[in-house]
């Protein structure tokens, strides 16, 4: 685990800041344009979820650089209402905000690794990683 950078999400425009940082780090790491777009989109989804449901939280980026592989890991943390049924939110088309309901399952498909932990009333922590191929 190497350098860490975090963006606080309070306002809608913080989503843009988080996304730009994610894209910038992906670019520096040597991801191609398609993976950069994937990472930026995934950051955008996670940041928007924080903004929409938890009102505030944080997105952190970690560069993973080991002998076997290199990649970018993003961790979205909030202390919002939490998710009661995780399998439900991971289904395509499930939404509580009138959106498309493709956010979380979409992020899972955009990234290589995806881990979600949530406790009702405590908050949510989502960790997603993309490896350089």
């Amino acid at each position, binding site marked *: 685990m190497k350098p860490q950078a975090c963006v606080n999400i309070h306002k809608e425009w913080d989503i843009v800041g988080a996304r730009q940082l994610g894209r910038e780090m992906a670019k520096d790491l040597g991801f191609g344009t*398609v993976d950069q777009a*994937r990472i930026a*989109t995934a950051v955008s989804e996670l940041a928007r979820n924080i903004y929409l449901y938890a009102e505030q939280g944080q997105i952190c980026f970690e560069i993973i650089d080991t002998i076997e592989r290199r990649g970018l890991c993003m961790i979205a943390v909030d202390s919002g209402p939490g998710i009661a049924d995780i399998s439900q939110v991971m289904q395509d088309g499930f939404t509580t905000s009138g959106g498309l*309901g493709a956010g979380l399952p979409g992020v899972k498909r955009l990234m290589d690794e995806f881990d979600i932990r949530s406790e009702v009333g405590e908050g949510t922590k989502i960790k997603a990683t993309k490896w350089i191929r």
Partner: protein
Amino acid sequence: MEFKQLVINNSDSIVQKWMEEIDSLKDSNYTATISDELYESTNREFVNVIFTSIRNEGSTKAVEDFSEKIINLGWPLSYITDGLQIFRRVSTEYLLTQSEKVDSNFFTNLSASVNDWVEPLIRELVNEYSGSWEHIVSLQRVALQELSAPLIPVMEGITIMPLIGTIDTERAKLIMENLLEGAIKHNSEVVLIDITGVPVVDTMVAHHIIQAAEAVRLIGATCILVGIRPEIAQTIVNLGIDLSNFPTKSSLKKGFSTALEITGRHVTDLNVKENNIEKMMDSLRGE
């Protein structure tokens, strides 16, 4: 106000000390790109503003001009606050060295007196500075809003909306309004939404575009989404967003020719035709 008079009478030595102190701040706080001459002349102007303000008990015009200048130079607000804090410290120190007997009572008086002229000045300068910034930001917001959802009628029945930059909820609302209003006003049969300049298409952006396209369909026009870059196409597929309900094209050019087809028109190259006729004539002559 004997302290005040003392400071004004000995402005030379205070200014000198102040200049030394603020000079040492240059490297640590501000960009090193500022030339020494400019920095020094601005410092002189700053200290003049401070003294005129103390002498006249508030000199709004000078303060206004000065804060405007600092903004135009692009210097940070901390330059102003640091400068005034230094002034407070330097004059307090100076007054202390000038006095023979110093007890706590004297010190309280002195400190209160110095605060009396420095604090209104801090308030005024900071207000001026932040007020100017707020003004600039609000002007830019208006300018940005005017640019956020332009609608261009290119031809009878065909309208284009080029989108550049991030789409947030406020802008999405504007896009929808302008799109529908414009489509009706220009009597459009086909509306092209160009997203070449949109950096990220996430579910929210896609959702807004789908809603806008659906609304356009309801008023009897066709909406074509153009400018889908390859990486955006891949992320849309990964996200599992269904855009099959309306036509999409990779570029504005392709979208425009589709729009021409829908409106029953096509583009003919006049020069090519003329060349062909000439070639035909030539070949006829040759026979």
